[in-house]
């Protein structure tokens, strides 16, 4: 989580939400959250699990 928050703080174009999945089962269903952490970027990029910083940013920005 902290990595996404760091990204938001570093770029004025990025907003990062930490979502408590068990509290919002409708969101967990909508984004097919079967394990955590799961990151959804702009509704269309999905990152499962934790990744090293480089790989996470690359995937989140759709450069992977």
């Amino acid at each position, binding site marked *: *989580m*902290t990595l*996404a*928050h*760091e*990204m*938001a*703080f*570093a*770029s*004025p*174009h*990025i*907003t*990062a*939400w*930490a*979502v*408590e*999945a*068990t*509290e*919002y089962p409708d*969101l*967990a269903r909508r*984004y097919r*959250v079967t394990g*955590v*952490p*799961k*990151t*959804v*970027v*702009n*509704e269309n990029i999905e990152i499962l699990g934790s990744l090293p*910083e*480089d790989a996470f*940013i690359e995937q*989140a*920005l759709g450069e992977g």
Partner: protein
Amino acid sequence: MPLLGPADQDRLRAEFSLMARRVHLLFFTQALGCETCLLTRQILDEFPALSDRIVIDEVNFVLDPDRARQYGVDRVPAIAVLYEDEPSTRQPLPEAGPPVLEDSRIRFLGMPAGYEFVSLVQAILLAGGRGSELSAASLERLALVDRPVVMQVFTTPT
């Protein structure tokens, strides 16, 4: 009755004492139909007790929909992390009016317990001026982002 033990309180008090800027937690809540809003408020109340550099600004989600929209909040409890863009040591002048708040674009949806609490502490320190822990290469890459990016990171308390 504090939720944190004395050792955790001491550790956090020491960490928060290094903050260069005052941080505001914009807390979106509602009185009815929100099981975790009250518990979230209790968790957030721990922070001002540990540092005068952390302020809780409560926003009624039902009565203030404009503010909710401004921060992209469409359900509660939600938290937006903001900060005063000036040193926290400067005493506010009486005639200066309310402080100008900068948006860190860091958000929390749901009760910040367990792992989320740790994330919230990290977010407060970051907005409070700790400095980024990202590599120089990552910061360079992020500086090139020129389109809106919204990230949702799903977690569980444990």
